[in-house]
């Protein structure tokens, strides 16, 4: 009888505290939501990996590139239209808008009438000319 009355007196506050702790934990373990920029960068990285991959057959490569390109078109547009990125002065956002040609790969390559790989290589400074001029040697 004594035990029951004690538990009745204590339980509401304990319940509230437990509920609060539960809510905090639930919020803490929620997966972080990637933004448009992060999604685009991940997709672009996968596309470049596919382009440079030597382990795939031509058909497999073409299939992967086609799928990735369609997704990347949308993701690039989402990033360019994302108002929340305007003025967000983080290293990632700064780096993304530093070089349009490297960040918005699909749009920039189409605009310049170049294939994806040619465009990317040209933008990072690798061209047929530079490769032809290169000499094998020891550093």
């Amino acid at each position, binding site marked *: 009888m004594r035990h029951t009355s004690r538990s009745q007196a204590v339980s509401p506050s304990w319940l509230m505290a437990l509920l609060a702790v539960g809510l905090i934990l639930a919020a803490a373990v929620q997966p972080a939501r990637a933004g448009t920029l992060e999604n685009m960068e991940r997709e672009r990285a996968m596309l470049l990996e596919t382009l440079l991959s030597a382990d795939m057959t031509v058909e497999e490569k073409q299939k992967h590139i*086609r799928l990735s*390109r*369609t*997704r990347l*078109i*949308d993701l690039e*547009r*989402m990033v*360019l*239209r994302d108002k929340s*990125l*305007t*003025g*967000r*002065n983080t290293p990632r*956002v*700064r780096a993304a*808008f*530093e070089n*349009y040609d490297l960040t*918005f790969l*699909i*749009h920039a390559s*189409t*605009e310049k009438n170049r294939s994806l790989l040619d465009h990317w290589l040209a933008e990072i400074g690798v061209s047929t000319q530079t490769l032809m001029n290169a000499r094998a040697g020891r550093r």
Partner: protein
Amino acid sequence: MKDRRYIAFLRPPRQAVLGGLALTVLAGLTLAPQLAAPAAGSSTAWRPVASERLIKLPAQYLKKAIDRDFSNSELANAMVDVEDRIKRKRQTLEDLQAAVERAEGEIRTELRHQFLAEKKAYIELAAEQQSLRRRQAKTKIRLYEKLLGKLKREQGALTPQRAALIEKQDAARQRFEAARVQVDTKLFQSTLTAESKYAREYAKNISAIETLVQAINAHPMNASAEIDGQAISKADYLRHLIAEGEADLAIVDQEGAILGFMAKLVSLDALALSEDIDPDAETDLASDEDAPDADHVTSAVGFFVGN
């Protein structure tokens, strides 16, 4: 009948009263604006807040919102009240002036005495009104300056690095928009690349967005302020309002000088009365050349000169 009513207010030791009146007018009226301020007190408050809502309002509605806030304030009520009292006082002065002109001998002197007392009361009321107007102008200037400061802080919050980033983002968007049609034609001409769900939905929504944007641009609340037909920025409009407030203050100060001269004339009249000088011998300075606005302090000049 009216004359008798005025006479009833008089007290026997006339010279002493007139001398006292002259002294009161001289000492009190030079300090009139300062004395009127505490008299107005805290019951005549207007404390507008430079809120974010005000800053976000379109420039041309900013002033209207502030004016509406003022009209609901105790200060506005006090100003209306004082204006009403001044109108009634002016009517009294007109009646008394007419009575003085009609009266003769002892009654005339008594009426002149009463007229002087009423003129003093009028000056005190006018000083109170000026004090309220000064407070209104100062509060407005302070509010506009606060709003301008907040606006500057908001605009100046951009660091050079952030400004450069925004510039690059704008350039990227412009480049994208300029090449979008070309890119669409090239990318989607192939049967292998179908338009995505996002592209279809976005195209559907964009026409609705454009219609709404047009409506927003055409909305009167979104129109920018104009001065002499020239559209100006919000900061420029606030600076214009501050200048207007300063002009109001300068006018109130000038009117204060007019009240000072009126006070001096009242005190001279009081001295003349105490010395029993014939009023007809006084210099007649009355002039109605410009016929001033009935509510303006200059419209009362006629009561103070030539009586």
